[in-house]
C-alpha cells in the first residue's frame, strides 16, 4: 500500500471514529441515532460482504448461500445464551468457531465431490435451504416461532442502550475484515487463492494443494460471517429461520461485493455504502412524489434501475471505475 493510500485510510478511519461523536453520544452537532443506525447498517453489511469477498472475490469460490454461516453464528450464540444461560460474549467465540467449522464441512463435502463454479454456488444455496428447514423443524431453535432474546441492555450482556456502541462494534469488525483482505493481497495464502481463482488446474500444476486452500478459505469466510450473525441477533434480539437463513442476506452479501468490486479490499465497503444510501434515499422518495398516493413501489423501481445501471456499466464494480479514472 502506498504512503498516500495509507494516509487516506487513516483519514477515513479517523472520520469513522469521530462520526458518532458528531451525531450521537455527547453530540457536537445534533444527536441522530438514525444517522448512526444507517452507518451501522453500512458497516455491518460491508463486513458480511467482506466475508463473502474473501471466498468469492479473492478465491473465486462464488457462493449463493453464505447466509448459512450467518445463521449458524446467530443461532449458536443465541441458543447458548437463551437456553443454556451462557453470557453472549462467551458464546460469541463458539459461534465464530461453529461458522468456521460449517465452512470447513461444506468445503470438504463440496470440493471433495469436485464441485466448481456454478455447481459450487448452487450447492451452497442448497446447504442454506437445508439449514433453514432444519431450523424450522427442531425444538432447539423453536422452529418457526423463533427465539426471543430478553432485552437487558447492559454492555456485559452484549446489549447496548446507545446505538453508538453497536456502531463501534461494526466498525471494529469492518476494520478486521479490511485487514484480512489486505493481508490476503500480501500473503502467500492470498497468492495461492489468486492462483486458484485464475486457473485452478494451473494452480494444481504449480503444486498448490487446491483442496486444502479452498477449505481453509471457506472456513475463514464462514467464521467471519458467523461473527456477524451473533451481532445481528444481539442487536435485534429476535431470530427465526427466515431471518437467519433467508436468501435475502446471501444476495445482499453478494451484491455489496459485486457493486463495490469483488476481489478488492474496499469493494464491499463502497458497495455497502452505495447500496444503503440509495436504499434510504429511494425509500424516502416514496413519500414525497407529488400526485401519487403510494409511491413506495416506485422507489423500489428507482432502486432497481440504479443497481442495473451499476452492474451493466461497471462490471468491475465502483472500485473498477475509480481505477480506470486514475
Amino acid at each position: 500500500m502506498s504512503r498516500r493510500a495509507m494516509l487516506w485510510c487513516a483519514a477515513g478511519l479517523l472520520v469513522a471514529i469521530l462520526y458518532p461523536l458528531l451525531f450521537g453520544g455527547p453530540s457536537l452537532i445534533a444527536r441522530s441515532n438514525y444517522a448512526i443506525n444507517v452507518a451501522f447498517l453500512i458497516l455491518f453489511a460491508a463486513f458480511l460482504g467482506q466475508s463473502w469477498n474473501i471466498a468469492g472475490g479473492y478465491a473465486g469460490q462464488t457462493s449463493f448461500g453464505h447466509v448459512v454461516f450467518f445463521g449458524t453464528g446467530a443461532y449458536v450464540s443465541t441458543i447458548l445464551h437463551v437456553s443454556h444461560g451462557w453470557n453472549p460474549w462467551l458464546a460469541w467465540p463458539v459461534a465464530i468457531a461453529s461458522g468456521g467449522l460449517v465452512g470447513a464441512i461444506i468445503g470438504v463435502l463440496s470440493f471433495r465431490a469436485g464441485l466448481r463454479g456454478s455447481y459450487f454456488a448452487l450447492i451452497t444455496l442448497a446447504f442454506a435451504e437445508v439449514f433453514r428447514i432444519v431450523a424450522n423443524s427442531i425444538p432447539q431453535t423453536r422452529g418457526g416461532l423463533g427465539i426471543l432474546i430478553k432485552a437487558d441492555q447492559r454492555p456485559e450482556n452484549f446489549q447496548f442502550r446507545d446505538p453508538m456502541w453497536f456502531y463501534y462494534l461494526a466498525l471494529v469488525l469492518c476494520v478486521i475484515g479490511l485487514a484480512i483482505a489486505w493481508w490476503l493481497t500480501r500473503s502467500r495464502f492470498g497468492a495461492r487463492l489468486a492462483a486458484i481463482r485464475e486457473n485452478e488446474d494451473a494452480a494444481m500444476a504449480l503444486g498448490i494443494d487446491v483442496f486444502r486452500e479452498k477449505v481453509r478459505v471457506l472456513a475463514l469466510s464462514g467464521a467471519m460471517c458467523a461473527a456477524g450473525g451473533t451481532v445481528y441477533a444481539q442487536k435485534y434480539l429476535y431470530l427465526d429461520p427466515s431471518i437467519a437463513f433467508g436468501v435475502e442476506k446471501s444476495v445482499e452479501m453478494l451484491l455489496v461485493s459485486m457493486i463495490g468490486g469483488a476481489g478488492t479490499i474496499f469493494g464491499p465497503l463502497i458497495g455497502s455504502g452505495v447500496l444503503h444510501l440509495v436504499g434510504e434515499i429511494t425509500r424516502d422518495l416514496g413519500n414525497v412524489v407529488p400526485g401519487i398516493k403510494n409511491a413506495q413501489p416506485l422507489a423500489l423501481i428507482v432502486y432497481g434501475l440504479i443497481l442495473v445501471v451499476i452492474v451493466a456499466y461497471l462490471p468491475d464494480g465502483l472500485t473498477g471505475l475509480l481505477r480506470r479514472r486514475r
Partner: protein
Amino acid sequence: MARKQSRFGVSRRSFVGGAGALSVGLAGFPAILGAQAKAVKVGLIHPVTGFVAYNGQQSRLGATMAIEDVNKAGGVKSMGGAKLEALLGDSQSKVEVGVSEVEKMNEAGASAFIGCFQSPVGIAATQAAAKYNTPFLIDVGASDQLVRRGLKNVFRLKPGFGKCVDDGIAALGAINKGAGSPAKSAVIVHESGEFGTGTAKLLAGKLPSIGIEAKELIPHDNPTRSFDNIALRIRSMAPDIVMMSNYGNEYMLLARTLFQQKVELKGMFSVLGGGFNYKFVKDMPDVSQFMMDTNHWFNPRSEASQALKKRVEAGGALFTFEVYLSYTNVMLLADALERAQSADKEKLIAALAASTFKAELMPYGPTKFVDGQNEGGLPAVMQSLKGEIEVISPEQFASAKAVFPRPKFT
C-alpha cells in the same frame, strides 16, 4: 369648524384610531398563533412493499383515513385542537428496516407509532421505540410475544393468536356438536413463520378437547407457488377438516388447489386466515363457498362500521381487516391523547394503560389493557356463503347460521 387635515389627508383622530386598532391587532396576533396547537406526529410503519405489500397498504389506508377524520372533527380538543400528522414508513418486511424507520421517525418527533403487520418486525421495532419510551400500538401482529416482554410502551387492541385459537376452537366445537359431530380429524396447513407455526401448534394442542384429532401439521414457505403436492398429501390422509393459518396469497392458492383437485372435506376452517376477505369471496365464490375463518372482523351491526365500509369501497378499496384495525388504533390513540391532554410520552402511556376506549367499529367490549394486551378484544367466526361473508359466531353479532358439514362435490 373645519377639521384640520394632515398633508397626507389623514386626520389626527383617524390616525390615533388606526394606531389603536393596529396595536390591538398586533397584541392579539401572538395569542392567535399560540392557539394553533402543535401537531401530534404519529409514525405509521407498515410493509407497503414486499410480499405482504397489499396488507401493508390496506393498513396505511385505514390509519390515514382515521387521521383525516380526527382532524376534520377538530383534532385533539383537550390540546387546543391539535391535529394529527402522519409520518409514513415502509418496513419492506425487514426487521432492520423497521428499526431504522423507528429511529428516523423518532428524530422527526413522533409521539407514537402504529404498526407493523409482521410480528418479527413488530418485536424489533417496539424494542427500538421502548428506548425512547414512545408508545407503540400494534394494529396488526398476531404473535403473543409482542406483548409478553414487559415493555410498558406496547399496546395491542386486537386479540392475539392465543385468544383467536381459543375462541375459534370453541366455535368449531359447538358447530361440530350441533351437526352431530361428523368431524373427527383434521390436517393443519400453516406458513412456517412465527404467526403460522404458533397458531398451528396451539390449534393442534386444543383440537382434542373438542373431539378432533390433529393428523398432521404441514408447514409451507412464504411465498409458495404451488400447493399441488400438499393437496395430494391431504387427499391421501383423508381428514374431515383442513385448517389453515397463513398469509393471503398462500391462503387463496391452497383453497383453490383443494377445490380444483376436488378434495372431499367436511369443512375448511382457518384461524387468522390471511386471505379470507371480500376480495377472495367475490373473486372466487365457488372456491370460498362454506369456508370458515376466525379472524378480526368489524361489528356488522354498527352503523359507524357500515358507513366506513361504504367510504372505503367508494374509494375503490376493499374493507379488509387491516383497514378497520388500523383505523381503530388511530382512534384509540386520539382518545388517549384527549385524556392525557398532552403528547408527553409518559402521560400518553399512562392514558393508554388506563384506557376504557370503546372501539365503535369492532365487536369488542370496553378496552382493558393487561400487560399491553386488550382483554376486551374478541375475534369473530365467519363463513363464506353465496359470495358474502357472514358472521356466524359470537351469536350476539351473528348475521347467519353456519352451514356444516359442507355438501360433497359429487
